[in-house]
């Protein structure tokens, strides 16, 4: 152990202008965005174009990711699928972020019954495992993009509420808040214009991780048949459809997963980099 530790200690640290995370992750995101916007130019055919004479073909020059059991080009579908998963990921995080931050700030600042009410609701929702609850809600509402947004909105806000509330509890005891109160500022004004901006940092850094979680949840729902409707090229749906062909066409299930992983890593790196940045600034 000592020789290993010695050798590791001797290795040089890496120096960069911005945290490595933001650079690498940002680059990956750019690639994804470019891919989705330029899709119609990059791949001439539609993701739903069937060619029954080219069923289940392995990856080749003509079809870099192979074809599925309808003869559809998997690369085209993965590219168009990026638009779906990314869109839902970003859209689905808006309501939880906004509503959660507000709820957390109000609960934290006002305290008393408001706090109890909000936090008990949070506890009840937390008690039920996230995926189980989302599955139950989507099963109730029915599959489809809008319903997924609703289900995630209903469940995911609690995380942001908790994060913001913790910060607000710390903030509200600071001197400037007492000063504002003494000056007779309306408490909503205090919450929204003064406290919230200072309390929002941890929630912002969590945004990126949450987008990843949402993309994974959308894929899982698609996999279970509760997500976006076929024949949309949503990644989770494609993996589920590919399951039947693990023997005869493993690329159908494998490729969308790699794409999902790529997107996920991009967001995580950006999120981590942002956290590092804020931590350095904070010090």
């Amino acid at each position, binding site marked *: 152990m000592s020789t290993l530790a010695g050798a590791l200690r001797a290795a040089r640290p890496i120096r960069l202008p911005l945290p490595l995370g933001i650079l690498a992750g940002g680059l990956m995101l750019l690639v994804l965005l470019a891919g989705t916007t330029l899709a119609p130019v990059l791949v001439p055919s539609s993701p*739903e174009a*069937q060619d*029954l004479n080219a*069923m*289940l073909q392995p990856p080749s020059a003509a079809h870099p990711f192979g074809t599925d*059991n*309808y003869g559809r080009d998997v690369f085209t579908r993965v590219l168009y699928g990026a638009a779906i998963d990314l869109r839902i990921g970003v859209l689905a995080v808006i309501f939880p972020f906004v509503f959660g931050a507000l709820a957390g700030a109000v609960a934290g600042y006002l305290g008393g019954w408001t706090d109890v009410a909000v936090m008990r609701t949070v506890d009840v929702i937390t008690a039920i495992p996230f995926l189980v609850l989302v599955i139950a809600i989507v*099963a109730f509402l*029915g*599959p489809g993009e809008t319903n997924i947004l609703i289900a995630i909105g209903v469940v995911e806000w609690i995380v942001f509420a908790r994060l913001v509330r913790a910060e607000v509890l710390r903030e509200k005891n600071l001197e400037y808040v007492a000063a504002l109160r003494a000056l007779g500022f309306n408490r909503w004004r205090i919450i929204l214009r003064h406290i919230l901006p200072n309390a929002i940092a941890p929630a912002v850094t969590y945004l990126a991780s949450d987008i990843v979680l949402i993309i994974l949840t959308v894929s899982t729902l698609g996999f279970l*048949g509760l997500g976006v*409707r*076929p*024949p949309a090229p949503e990644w989770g749906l494609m993996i589920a459809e590919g*399951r*039947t*062909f*693990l*023997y*005869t066409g493993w690329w159908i299930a494998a490729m969308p997963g790699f794409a999902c992983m790529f997107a996920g890593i991009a967001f995580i790196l950006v999120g981590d980099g942002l956290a590092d940045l804020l931590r350095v600034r904070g010090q």
Partner: protein
Amino acid sequence: MRVRILIALVTAAGLVFGLFSPTGAAGFKPVINFGVNRAAEDLDPVTQDANPNIWAYMQIYQELIAINVKGDGFVPDLATKWAVSPDGKTWTFTLRPDARFSTGDPVTSADAVWSLQRAHDMDGPWKWALESVQSISAPDAHTVVFTLKEPFAPFLSDVSLFSNAILSEKVFKSATHEQISTKPIGSGPFMLTDWKKGEELVMKANPYYYVKGRPRTPELHLRYIPDDNNRVIALQSGDVDGVDYPPFSLLSTLRRDPRIDVQLNPSTAVQHVLLNVTAAPLNNIKVREALSYATDRDAIVKAVCYGACTPATSFLPITTPLFDKQLKAYTLDLTKAKQLLQESGVPTPITLKAIIWSGNTDAETATTLLKAMWAKIGVNLQIEPLDRATATQRMRALDYQVDVSGWTNDVPDPSELASYEFDYVTAKSYHTGYKSDAMDALINKGVRELDLNKRRQIYYQMQQLAITDAPLVWLYYAPYTIALNKKVSGFVQLATGPWIFKDVAVAQ
């Protein structure tokens, strides 16, 4: 001397152990392991219509007469002889004297009458099978007499239906529904010994079964392996000796495997598209005809069955008696389809909503293919996957437009499907809402006409009328796919679906 005695003793011990060892007949395995894609849930013959339930209890229960393998005739089961009176209204069945339930009790006509009366009276999916029956009686311990309301052509078919299984009156007369569903007692080759619901169903030989030497293998395990890949892997790794429904896409891979035998068993199945004809635009017959002409059945057969199926012509499955081989049915004709849509007066593009049960891969594939095909004539099909419960409910409530579904004849007679598919009273015409007086008349004549040739003409007319009215789009006839280890012999599957395990032996 002592050595000789020792050798003799050892040999004797070996023989003794050999006789009582768990191997059944010498050189064969004592257990059959069979992987199934759907689990049995409830084994009550009268109330259940799901195949996994039926095919499981068919190893345990018997009927008066059984359907033959080809699906076009009958063989004796519990009854050895049967005859009809000249006026066609009285049927007499003679029971074999040596049949016994797994409790040891003999099967008597009292058991038959009780079971059949229950099937006749109880509100269930098979009540129609004994609708023609006025009364059932047992003049003696081995005779069962049916008195019909009027002469009924499909009577024998209906009586052979699995829901008319003979249960032990003594055991079940005052039993709860739960008992009948979970603890069947029958006279067939097997009896239920252990049931891990949702996992495995274990049956052992009925010691009182009257056919000596049957079942050839004394123990049968039906293992629930819902995932297609896992089921095939289980077969290839030797975990199971056979599987049902290996996916069509894997058949060529399996055929290349020297250890595996693939069977394509003729079936009484047909895959079709239900259309809700009660609402626009599907209430317009030209729209429906256009859809039929726009459907490329050969392409569907290629992409769903990988060539193993037959494109559909008639509404009847191809193995049904009185199937019209010369029927002039729909073929792919896009020009005609577009022309019909124009003539219909309904403006394109037309949007139609299709529901599918998301567990059914073949239906999903077919629907996705139809979407691409119908898009060529300006019909936009939107797919809505639902779980089984919601899909069933929506279909029954006629809350859908398009629904790809499948049917299997349960009796070797066209009347079952004809009535379910075109008679509004029975099931709202297979939940399409179709109503036709002409069709109703044909259905009624069909069950009353005892002369075979005249009956054939009636059903030929019916098949033609179905083409003309086009309330459904018929897609293909699919065989049952089975994959077995080459060491398995004697496996048989009836055209109506049920497996027969009593003759199966698995070599070591």
